[in-house]
């Protein structure tokens, strides 16, 4: 029976486990998904593992060790399609803050015996090492989007995932703009949609956890964020958090840091 079902694998690299937990958080759909595929490798859910090849590999986490690099190439070799999920697997995640610092200094702060620790100087997404067929953004990803991506790949079509900004989702949700109406700084205009515009509905500005939208004009947003009270210190940090290594956010944080040092 299993021979006819598509074979699914879920891989973990450096991460908080939240994005693969999102699959287990599909409480209403999990057993249906499990009925439609053969879960061949998913260590968080099952001790039974089956060797590849796999039709679809879902990758969580970023590449931070030499062993990770070998493992991600192995995943690519064994998989028909590779989908990266979450900020770690699409932009290196929060642990990519080491890319802006000296990792040896980081190690010395946390560990008494730095010589026991083997880690790369950078945290990078799988796409920096292998060809990735689709990237699903979010810190964490949205479960409905995850189900759409899995369904799409199992049916052999492209996932229908909007690449516009969070602003569209606020309009759809009927949330009054927090930046316009309340002067709360908000990254919604430059942040990738997918969460459903949660933060503005809770009276806070978007903090960019889905990373940059596909086409953004961050420099034109900066004056508005500054007018809403964000200092260069805050601007540097708001772009340098969960998606710090995403190119558009990296550029924005680097510029803000430059004006921080000028001030």
């Amino acid at each position, binding site marked *: 029976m299993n021979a006819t079902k598509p074979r699914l694998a879920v891989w973990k690299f450096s991460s908080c486990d939240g*994005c693969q937990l999102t699959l287990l958080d599909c409480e209403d759909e999990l057993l249906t998904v499990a009925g439609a595929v053969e879960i061949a490798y998913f260590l968080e859910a099952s*001790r039974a593992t089956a060797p590849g090849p796999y039709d679809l590999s879902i990758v969580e986490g970023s590449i931070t060790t030499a062993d990770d690099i070998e493992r991600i190439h192995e995943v690519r070799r064994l998989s028909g399609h590779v989908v990266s999920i979450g900020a770690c697997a699409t932009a290196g995640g929060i*642990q990519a803050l080491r890319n802006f610092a000296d990792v040896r200094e980081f190690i010395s702060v946390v560990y008494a015996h730095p010589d026991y620790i083997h880690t790369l100087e950078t945290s990078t997404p799988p796409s920096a090492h292998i060809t990735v067929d689709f990237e699903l953004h979010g810190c964490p990803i949205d479960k409905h989007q995850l189900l759409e991506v899995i369904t799409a790949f199992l049916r052999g079509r492209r996932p229908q995932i909007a690449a516009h900004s969070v602003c569209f989702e606020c309009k759809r949700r009927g949330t009054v703009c927090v930046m316009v109406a309340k002067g709360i700084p908000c990254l919604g205009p430059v942040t990738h949609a997918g969460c459903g515009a949660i933060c503005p509905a809770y009276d*806070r500005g978007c903090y960019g956890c889905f990373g940059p939208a596909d086409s953004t004009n961050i420099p034109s947003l900066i004056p508005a964020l500054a007018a809403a009270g964000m200092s260069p210190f805050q601007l540097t940090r708001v772009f340098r958090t969960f998606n710090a290594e995403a190119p558009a956010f990296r550029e924005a944080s680097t510029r803000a840091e430059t004006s921080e040092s000028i001030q």
Partner: protein
Amino acid sequence: MTHANGASRTLSVASLARVEGEGAMHVVVRDGVVSDVELRIFEPPRFFEAFLRGRAATEVPDIAARICGICPVAYQMSACQAIESACGITVDEQVLALRRLLYCGEWIESHALHIYLLHAPDFLGYESSVALAQDHRAIVERGLQLKKVGNDILTVLGGRAIHPVNVRVGGFYKAPSFAELDALTERLRWAVDAAIETVQWVAGFDFPDLQLEGDLVAMQHEHEYPITEGRIASTSGLDITVDHFPEHFSEEHVAHSTALHGRMRGGGTYTVGPLARYNLNYDRLPALVKELAVAAGVARECRNPFQSIIVRALEVVFACDEALRIIAAYTPPAAPSAEMPARGGTGHGCTEAPRGLLYHRYTVDDAGVIRDAVIVPPTSQNQPSIEHGLREFVQHRLHLDDAELTRQCEQAIRNYDPCISCATHFLDLTVDRG
């Protein structure tokens, strides 16, 4: 993998399943005696305590949440408490009640996940809950729906289940209306019944004999079963306020683990988590939960780690009941959050994550910037105790072949619900039999 040579062998589990994160276990047997047990944690380090330095104190709840996708609320709550203590912020009583409600959601979600999806399959001889569902679909559905009720609390109050957005230093961005919370009441009433059925279901499992030795450490509170507040207590009589944690507990760095090992100064290994909470706080449980505990065969003292699955189920009943109580008594606070004063200092925070005591300490400067951060997660504290317990566990099971010994060791490790992502911030088994 096995190398049998008379009375000596090595057992090696290369990748532990149904735990959060990456680890392995290595057991060395020489002349019929277990000479070494190592939990090898190779989850790569992510350096939170390093990159939190230089961030605004107000950013910490969002950043610390990313240590763990399973228990982000625990990280947010311990962080908020420590920063509020450092900056002298007093939090409104209704905001504290909302925090406890949010945390109840996380206990329900995390415990239901562990009971139904990670741990129960061991007791019933299945590889996964998906395999369990093929024979017992209604039971697994019940577990998933129970888990969902926990996530519903997190979503209503926190904005989403994983990495909630509504938590800030001083309180929340937006306080819910009574009606928004009351919409959860009907589902929570169902959840109390489902949790009671869960206790009765897991109480019928077979439990290997094993006694957890050493000190148990948990928070204690005058009136409440501890979640967000209280003193730190142990079964050997420790009773301190949270700010004295560093004087009594230390962390060591060992070669085989990217998670630091927790130790009690002048003492030895200790255990945190549901068993510790339960043993130290049984008297604070509501009558309903105590009655269920007695019927389930766990008395006021329960030191069998395998029976932690019963204690988790009892805590789910408690958390559902407590959530109902908080919602019924809720009136929105005057302001959702307290102001952040321009004053620095060093503050300590401690709350009961689903897996046990979670301690944070931050030094904040007068500009509101983090200068130093220390985070001690539950699994780091439990790692030496897990290794110690496994040594005796394996010693009595050396007659088993490697496959069965491995299976039983994995089950014993899952008793602790280890969260390796947190601790490294865990498991492949290797038994070296010579």
